[in-house]
């Protein structure tokens, strides 16, 4: 039979409609396939595949860190941040990690180079094998605001 490569996305806004049922069975029926669970808040595909040889990769986002000694208090970063993740009080910069969307703009703008980027782990990507199915599972740490960085990472990891 001719080999066909295709990407099939299974999604729905409604819970309990059978997304996992359909996608798990599609992947299993295709035999040689890759199953990517992007439901990073509660991934459950791995419960059916029971993948083996599991390897994990941490997923992190970049957030700003300040060296207060270098900060001149110009507030360019505070004014720039569209999400209001920064405040300047009593000669000190306050950074709200959970509000930051990791755009990096504040770090680029800082004329004193007082801001640098640090990595903050938000979850992980698990890779395992179940027969002919490669099983990738995105897992977001509880309490994190956004799982999108993990979902965005998933296809790149697959290519590797």
């Amino acid at each position, binding site marked *: 039979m001719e080999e066909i490569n295709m990407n099939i996305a299974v999604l729905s806004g409604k819970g309990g409609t059978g997304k996992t049922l359909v996608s798990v069975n599609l992947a299993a029926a295709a035999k040689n396939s890759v199953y990517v669970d992007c439901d990073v808040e509660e991934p459950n595909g791995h419960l059916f595949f029971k993948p083996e040889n599991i390897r994990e990769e941490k997923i992190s986002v970049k957030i700003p860190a300040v060296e207060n000694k270098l900060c001149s208090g110009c507030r360019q970063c505070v004014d720039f941040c569209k999400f*209001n*993740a*920064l*405040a300047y*009080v*009593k000669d000190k910069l306050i950074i709200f990690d959970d509000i930051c969307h990791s755009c990096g703009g504040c770090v680029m703008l800082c004329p004193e180079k007082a801001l640098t980027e640090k990595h903050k782990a938000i979850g992980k990507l698990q890779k395992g094998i179940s027969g002919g199915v490669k099983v990738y599972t995105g897992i977001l740490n509880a309490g994190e*605001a956004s799982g999108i960085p993990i979902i965005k990472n998933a296809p790149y990891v697959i290519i590797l």
Partner: protein
Amino acid sequence: MKIAIPADEKNMGTNVCASFGRTPWFLIYDDETKEYTFLDNSAASESGGAGIKAAQAVVDNKADVLLTPRCGENAANVLKAANIKIFKTNSISAKENLEAFAACEFPLLDEIHGGFHGHGGN
């Protein structure tokens, strides 16, 4: 001492606004000089982080005290860093709250809510 209150309207007959971060105005009242100003709260139209931006404005206007019905966690952290004390309003009218505050009838706001974070997309 400068007192900040979230206000629905730009006049002394105003009610206290139910929201801190998205209040249209802040009444800034100086209880020594009896002078007052209304600060336009630009944070009200922000897609996210309104509490932080509003708190920054309250700090920058050198308020010592905030009277508010509610306050979120992030805004409270900014205010705390500036040593601004937060008190819970006990009536609807801004003026009545100022009078009650002058008479020391106020409890500290000790129930900081978790904020309404997650605005502005991901």
